[in-house]
């Protein structure tokens, strides 16, 4: 007698098979994949009596995803301690959480006066220094998260969604805020507006190929690019402004390969450095893309997280897709952490 499998389970099994094949073809991954996922469904409210398997998931093989630490429905993103990659720092509803042992052991590092950080970044050239983007400003720790203080001088509207530290120089940081992109060159003592926007800047990345290049995506102003280390910015005319763009990624292997996703935009891939974009949404269940990411270890591998759907993966840069994990999820972030 043949057992009838649910469609999603069949798809996941297929995904596992595909992943195994892709990994077999690739070298041993140099990174672990961490996923910040809310899998609790659209109707769940804070204070729910339904136990939630949401939270941090770790995958070392890109096939199996192991929950790490506490269940949590609002885990937004993470970074790793540059001197100790097995220690993660999580931006959560409850504040900044230090999660040792690959995310297993948690401690909330911030106090009552810092809520809902949306982004967090170490300074690779000053590795005791961490920056966190808060709904009401920017918090800085100079002792690896033990203590924090706000450093917002120069920023009037302080909602901060994304923080990127320039890897070329200590204390040089870019922040995506409600009203634009701000730059500090003195470790957050002072900030100056380098690109105004009407609404929030949701993602801001430094090119892995050219440290002078940064790319930002926004809620209402499309995308911007800087080629001088974030000092000046130019709009990217090929990216429309009508939709909220959630995030952006560079391919660490192909300098001209870029991808972005957003609400209603689907997955957009460029092979020419952003001059033109190809819609890679066909095969995904909707165009509301919460997160996209290019795998640093597996050539041609692209991830996309449609709203309230499984996390999808493609091994041909979005020409075809298959579900990888979760039944329904909001994936707040996909983060590759150097394997330790």
């Amino acid at each position: 007698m043949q057992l009838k499998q649910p469609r999603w389970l069949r798809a996941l099994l297929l995904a596992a098979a595909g992943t195994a094949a892709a990994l077999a073809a690739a070298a041993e991954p140099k990174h672990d994949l961490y996923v910040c996922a809310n899998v609790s469904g659209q109707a769940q409210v804070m204070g729910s009596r339904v136990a939630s398997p949401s939270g941090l998931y770790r995958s070392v093989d890109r096939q199996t995803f192991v929950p790490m630490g506490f269940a949590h429905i609002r885990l937004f993103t993470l970074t790793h301690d540059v001197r100790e990659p097995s220690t993660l720092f999580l931006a959560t509803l409850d504040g900044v959480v230090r999660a040792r042992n690959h995310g297993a052991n948690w401690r909330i590092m911030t106090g009552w006066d810092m809520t809902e950080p949306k982004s967090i970044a170490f300074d690779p050239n000053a590795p005791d220094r961490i920056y966190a983007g808060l709904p009401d400003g920017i918090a800085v720790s100079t002792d690896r998260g033990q203590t924090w203080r706000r450093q917002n001088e120069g920023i009037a509207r302080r909602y901060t969604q994304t923080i990127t530290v320039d890897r070329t120089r200590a204390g040089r940081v870019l922040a995506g805020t409600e009203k634009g992109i701000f730059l500090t060159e003195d470790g957050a003592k002072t900030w100056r507006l380098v690109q105004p926007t009407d609404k929030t800047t949701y993602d801001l990345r430094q090119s892995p190929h050219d440290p002078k290049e940064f790319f930002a995506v926004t809620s209402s102003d499309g995308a911007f690019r800087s080629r001088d280390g974030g000092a000046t910015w130019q709009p990217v005319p090929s990216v429309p402004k009508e939709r909220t763009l959630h995030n952006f990624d560079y391919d660490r292997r192909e300098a001209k390969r870029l991808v972005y996703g957003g609400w209603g935009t689907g997955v957009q891939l460029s092979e020419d450095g952003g001059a033109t974009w190809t819609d890679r949404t066909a095969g995904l269940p909707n165009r509301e893309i919460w997160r996209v990411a290019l795998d640093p270890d597996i050539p041609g591998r692209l991830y996309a997280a449609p709203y309230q759907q499984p996390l999808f993966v493609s091994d041909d840069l979005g020409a075809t897709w298959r579900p990888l994990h979760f039944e329904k999820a909001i994936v707040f972030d996909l983060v590759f952490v150097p394997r330790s």
Partner: protein
Amino acid sequence: MNPATFFPMRFSRFLTGVVFGALAAAASAQPAFTGPMPARGPVNDASLRRNQYLERRAEVLAWRSAQAKPGEPATLGLAEAAAKLARREDAAAVSERVIELMKKPTGDMFWMFPVACISYLGRDQLTPAAKAAIREAWRTYMPLRGDTENHWVMYYTSLYLMAQLWPDEPGERWFNGKSSAEISAEAQAWLLDWMKLTTTIGQGEYDCTHYIGEYAISMLYLATWAQDPAMRQRGRMMLDYVMADYAVDTLDGIYIGAHARTDDRQVLEKWNGLSSFFGWLLFGNCPPPAAYGGWGLYFAAAADHYDLPEVVYRIGTDRSGPYTQFERKRTRHRWRNSDVRNAPVYKQSYVTADYALGSDQGGLLQPIQQHSWDVTWAVPDPRGVHNTMFSVQPHYGADELMTYFTEMPDYMPASVTFQGKPTYTAPTKLLGGSPYEQIFQRDDALVSLTKVPPGTTFEHVNGFFSKDLAKLEEDASGWIFAQGGRAYLAYRPLAPYTWQPIEGGGKRLYSESRRNGTILQVASASEFKTWDDFKAAIRALPLTLATDPVPRVSFTTLRGRKLELAYGAAPKVDGRTIDHAKEWKLFAGPYLNAEVGSGTLTITHGRLKRVLDFNSVTATDTVNP
């Protein structure tokens, strides 16, 4: 709050579950909920008043305890456990059940304070194994901190008390990795900051028909169980503060006027919510809601440690003469779309024995569940009665939600409707604020003006006309006359309208003009010999109105005041321009008075006076000769 779940809305949905869960379990009658109306007259004898209060408390505990059925462990939940411990009964069974309940905690901050309650009530009743199970749960389960003040007050009060219960423990023993000392210091710092904000620039989630419970319960627990005398005193004083703020805005126990947050049910059936539990328990002048509002049990569990000051009791029960109470509050924290973190809210309530009219200044002051104005009339029995009239400019959008929440914008509006706020995106909605509405009230007259930009999702105004109106007449003058209870109501739309039926009864006035408004004048039936006299008096009031280029009204009220209002301009009363920022104190009126920034509240009624001074952490009572 929250899709996931961002939101704050969580609570009412959660509460609904609690209430209906309780109702489902309630095979036995709930005495005061199903019984006759209580006598409403004030009880002057202090000992009798106290005894009646304690009897009501005992009723809550007895009913809740009885929901646990022998041989049906699932019927003994946290609430039943708290009730039994408060009654000092069945400790062994409660202990066994607590051990099971601690294996799979859920509910975040709504789990924390029930467990704190059980832990303190059970200090000398629970078995060591049950206490150990509770202790372990606070290490292995991570309740969310939440994203709004009612979440935080529950979270930090609970943490404060539990760190006190288990002092000197290292971070490894707590879910958040912090030591007992760190937790205690952090929780106290948040609580002191909230108290300071509230007593200097006003409460954020002000006058909430449901969330009042979260603040009241938390403060009661501090007042009851905090070991630090100053913290205990602060808890007691803040509880007095919250209850005085509630008392002055009630009519027979019903929370009236503007609310930071209410819900689709209570905005119409004004009595039907947790706030009325406090009216019943503390003032004895209304029935309690079903299941005592759900959370009422957790107040009752420690309510023997609270003695409502007589001055507050008098304010809650004396409706011998009309009064106006002015109040300044603050918005919830604004994260985006605002240059200020907490904008001021200017409230007022005009309260008589027959009706009460209350309002804020309009605008988006809170997300989703704001209620900006209404008139509520007194009824012999409020159960099932829609004793209110108001209008709203229905509005929703990502911008509103982004202002008050830190979430991504586009998914939020639809998600809200899955999270216990089904009407949020509906054109028929009767709940919520609008950025395009400006309101001004003086005495028992109110003008609401709306100017909606073209292309806005909803450009119309909804007026609520209850199924329980005794009279409803459309007059050739343009006024709509109505009677609710002993209140006469005159409602004047500024633009043409049609009528739409409302599911559940009543009619919705639908007026689709973008430049629009509502004028409301209320009076007591006792002021007029006949209904026709009232109508004639209203028709005779000087009134000019226009909608072009902006809505504009000049209206002389029944009380003889000339109101001049134009959308976008400061209101004028008798030729004097009203400057809200300069004129509005934290509290001003015959009963509650406080200056902005003062940290004090003076509560007076007749000869009684109580001064709450949060600077010196003292409460001083005086009786004037």
